[in-house]
């Protein structure tokens, strides 16, 4: 028996597609450096909210799609997103208790590691990097997390019965 599986899969899939679209939608030059790590935020949320249904396996697959989409080394985002999902699943019980701003700290830490990892992989693969520009999105992501959280929670409560 598989109650409510299709609904949750569809809801999660749509949220991931939206995150992917936001990842590649064109922004004016300065906006490019400020773009939040949408996909990592969405992955973080779903692991936090539904750790049994959404887990590192999905994070890995989504990461692979992201690598193809952004023309990166295959596996780079997969690895980085597995890390994010792993941290989220470690923390999910604690995180639910904490107020939002403390959650934001957790998100910040996870995204920092995510970015450092991608930065490092980029360095090994021989891409030139401008470090400071690279870490701006982490700050933006932390600031935007409470809204992402609120929106996705509404979506979950609406479309995925507990």
């Amino acid at each position: 028996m598989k109650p409510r599986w299709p609904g949750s899969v569809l809801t999660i899939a749509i949220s991931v597609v939206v995150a992917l679209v936001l990842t590649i939608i064109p922004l004016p030059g300065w906006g490019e450096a400020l773009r939040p790590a949408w996909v990592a935020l969405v992955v973080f949320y779903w692991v936090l909210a539904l750790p049994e249904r959404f887990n590192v396996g999905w994070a890995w697959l989504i990461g692979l799609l992201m690598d193809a989409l952004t023309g990166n080394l295959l596996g780079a985002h997969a690895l980085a997103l597995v890390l994010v999902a792993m941290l989220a699943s470690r923390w999910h019980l604690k995180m639910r208790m904490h107020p939002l701003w403390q959650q934001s700290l957790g998100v910040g830490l996870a995204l920092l590691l995510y970015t450092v990892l991608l930065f490092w992989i980029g360095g090994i693969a021989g891409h030139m990097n401008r470090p400071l520009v690279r870490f701006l999105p982490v700050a933006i992501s932390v600031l935007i997390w409470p809204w992402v959280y609120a929106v996705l929670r509404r979506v979950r409560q609406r479309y995925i019965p507990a």
Partner: protein
Amino acid sequence: MKFTREHHLFHATSRGRALRTALLILAAIALMALDNHYLALRHVRSALLAVVYPVQWLVNEPGALGRTMASDLASHHALLKRNAELERKLIRARVDVARMDALKEENRRLRLLLNAVGRMPGRVVATSILTVDMSPFQSLITVNAGKNYGVHLGQPVIDADGVIGQITHIGPLQSQIMLITDPASAIPVEIGRTGLATLALGTGQLNVLSLPYLPNSTDIKPGDRLVASGFGGRYPRGYPVAVVTAVEPQAGEPFAHVSARPLARLGREHEVLLYFTAKPDMENTP
């Protein structure tokens, strides 16, 4: 049991969970190592690109719709004016082509005299841009033509004004182009005026190429045009690439700081041209 068997992979005990995470991490690292050194994963990437095609389509579609509507709404008068202008341009272009034909013929005869192999003319195919990724660390555009158009790796991409870049990844319906301004890009060029060959590197900025290997004494000045030298056999020889914008000799250092501005309308187009070389028959050439 809450979950059916096919979900088993993604639902495990806590030890199993740790093992699964470790396996996924190893798999990701193995993939990266393979992808970095071999072409082995190009089919995997192609399959993944097929999966993400709808996402790129979604991003592109509103813009394309807007453009269509804008041209539908353009006034009759404006269209007539534009039409007349384009016709004038066409006539001028035809005159140029006629002159080119004469030159080509003359060139062919001269080459025959010199007993050199003539350059094979290329074929171009226009394709529309799906998405543009212009972060400071990457200049990548995705176009709406992939395996279905016979696109191949390393294929040059141009527009009417200059070289744009080369194909780096190919999917069934789309392919990704690394622009000449990508930090990882280097294009062999020559200075049109003197014929000196060098490399132009991408800087991550859309309007700047850097030429770091020119000695201070090089005869080069702002306004010089750079054309593809054809070395490496990738970009069409003689096709315009950039125009030199600044030359700063560096006292005490061997090389000057030279920068150039790409001539192609990078990041401002809706269409680019894929350049297909008619490959010279290597086997028959002595």
